[in-house]
């Protein structure tokens, strides 16, 4: 279903939504783009993507799970209040929206994670088509279309008169009923498609070759040593990744009581796999191999999708310019 809305009506519509939900929109704070509660009037200009991926709005960097008290040899657990309150996430990009889809089975299959699921169900996802390819990105190679996506409730494309909206879910439909929107056609939607100005003639690598390529390279110690030589073992690539989801648990405790927390963790840290008497990934090349193999091979084996959307955050923010794209080009040869 397609709808359209003028810029003026968009402002009014957002104003009305604000009364019903917390609106999280891209805003620049301390020089960094992030999704914040913000008095948004329109989709922001010059916004390419947020520094931290929106995964943090679903899988918080730090989240209290439950509280406990102990007395007289028994322990009482207190669940924390459920996460509630409708949220509307605006300006989300197709890569990050796909990343949320990729994360879904991890937190639903085998063990439903209430925190992640509550966050998913209370958040309406409104997307915006990209107008440029981000520096360092390789979304096209990863099969993400910066101008089209089915991973939203409503997906917007800019037109001179305002925005066209592709409504993709029932919830999206409820939010676009009313007078602010007018009917639009599939033909109008197709006409509003913009080509990416920086699109390359040839993709950097063929995605279908990547999982097998990574699997084949697995035993090649020399290869992994060579490609990871520069790595400084920091957590930037994992923490800025929209699909990395490994976490750690920890307690903040006082005598007789405490709170158990979950926080992000990174396979780049030597301590990540450290256990009593042994660390299977003591060396850096093993950790880098794990990160690439998990995303492009193990995850693919388990969930039939690849845990990377080509957003380019790891490429741009790596302190030593260790570029994942170069590694993928090599393994996909």
């Amino acid at each position, binding site marked *: 279903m397609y709808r359209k809305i003028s810029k003026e009506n968009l402002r009014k519509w957002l104003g009305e939504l604000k009364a019903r939900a917390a609106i999280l929109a891209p805003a620049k704070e301390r020089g960094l783009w992030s999704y914040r509660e913000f008095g948004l009037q329109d989709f922001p200009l*010059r916004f390419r993507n947020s520094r931290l991926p929106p995964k943090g709005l679903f899988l918080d960097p730090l989240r209290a799970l439950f509280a406990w008290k102990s007395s007289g040899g028994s322990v009482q657990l207190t669940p924390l209040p459920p996460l509630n309150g409708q949220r509307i996430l605006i300006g989300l990009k197709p890569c990050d929206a796909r990343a949320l889809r990729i994360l879904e089975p991890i937190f639903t299959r085998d063990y439903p994670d209430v925190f992640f699921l509550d966050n998913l169900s209370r958040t309406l996802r409104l997307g915006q088509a990209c107008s440029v390819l981000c520096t360092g990105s390789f979304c096209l190679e990863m099969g993400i279309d910066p101008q089209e996506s089915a991973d939203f409730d409503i997906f917007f494309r800019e037109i001179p008169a305002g925005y066209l909206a592709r409504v993709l879910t029932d919830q999206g439909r409820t939010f676009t009923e009313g007078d602010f929107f007018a009917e639009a056609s599939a033909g109008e939607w197709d006409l509003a498609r913009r080509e990416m100005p920086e699109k390359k003639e040839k993709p950097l690598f063929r995605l279908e070759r990547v999982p097998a390529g990574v699997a084949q390279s697995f035993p090649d110690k020399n290869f992994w040593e060579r490609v990871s030589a520069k790595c400084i073992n*920091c957590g930037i690539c994992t923490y800025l990744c929209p699909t990395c989801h490994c976490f750690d648990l920890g307690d903040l405790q006082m005598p007789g009581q405490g709170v158990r927390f979950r926080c992000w963790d990174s396979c780049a840290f030597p*301590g990540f796999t450290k256990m009593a008497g042994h660390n299977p990934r003591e060396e850096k090349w093993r950790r880098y191999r794990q990160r690439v193999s998990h995303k492009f091979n193990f995850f693919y084996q388990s969930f039939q999708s690849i845990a990377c959307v080509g957003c380019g955050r790891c490429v741009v923010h790596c302190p030593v310019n260790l570029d994942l794209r170069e590694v993928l080009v090599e393994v996909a040869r």
Partner: protein
Amino acid sequence: MPETIKDELIALAAKLFREGKISHFLGYQKGTLKFQTTPLIALNPEDLQHLWLEDFFFFNLAFYLKEIKNKVGLLVKGCDSRSLLSLIKEGQVKREDLYVVGIPCPGQIDLRKVAEAIAGEREEIEEIWRQGNEVHVRVNDQEKRLPKALALLDKCLHCRYPKPLISDFLLPGEYAPPVPPATPETTQGLSRGRDELRPKPLPEKWAFWVDQFQHCLRCYACRNVCPACFCPRCIVEENMPQWVSPLPTAGDNFVFHLMRLMHVAGTCVSCGECQRVCPMEIPLMRLHDKMAEDLEELYNFVAGIDLDQPLPFRTFRQEDADDFIK
């Protein structure tokens, strides 16, 4: 830099490899992004072909000496050479295991500052080049001229040691003269803003840092990139007992950063790598600069400029002040 100089360096390093004087040569190579080089870790003379000596060689390659324990040749800027002196003094590397090649540094361009100066995004910068005393930038097909103060890393604006303090070979070229120590007049108008925070009352400074550190992700890039952070096991990873929680709470983040600041006092040479790599853009150098100034003022000590002067925080003298112990 002229090709002949690069050829000269390649020939020199290749000779060192052949003679068995080095096992690694650390330099820079062309990066995969605009305005970016990347460290080159050459293991043989063939790898040296990738050497690239053009702009944006901001890395302090001394940080790889934490990992590569061997005979190493490496390129250093003036500031990086102070890290080497510091590491030698601390017994982390031996002078005779290093072959140090100095490179003239015109001051490194700070892309964050350039983006700020053009009131745009880093991605919008089309071209950057130097001309005379200015840095020129092309954005949206328009040329803008920026004074150095708005385009170079803050540390470069007051660099007192632009010429490497130790070296076995200095690449030919122009080594900039040292910048005289900062005075209120010379720091006026700088974006570094240390003076903007310093005269403020303590609660305001406290609030500033509480806000900054709540953004910390605990990715440890600042610690890992730091040549002075060479402990094989960092206290934040100790868990019996656990001194600092790995949970990124505002309080634990604060403790982590202040502890690191105190711990590298005297070995930190203000290379600024921690601030450069911080993905959340926390202005860590405001703390490290203040620490460096205090050490100089209180102990007449400057980190990484000699091998002899003892580290203030690791020296005990009978006459040391103790009136703060009640």
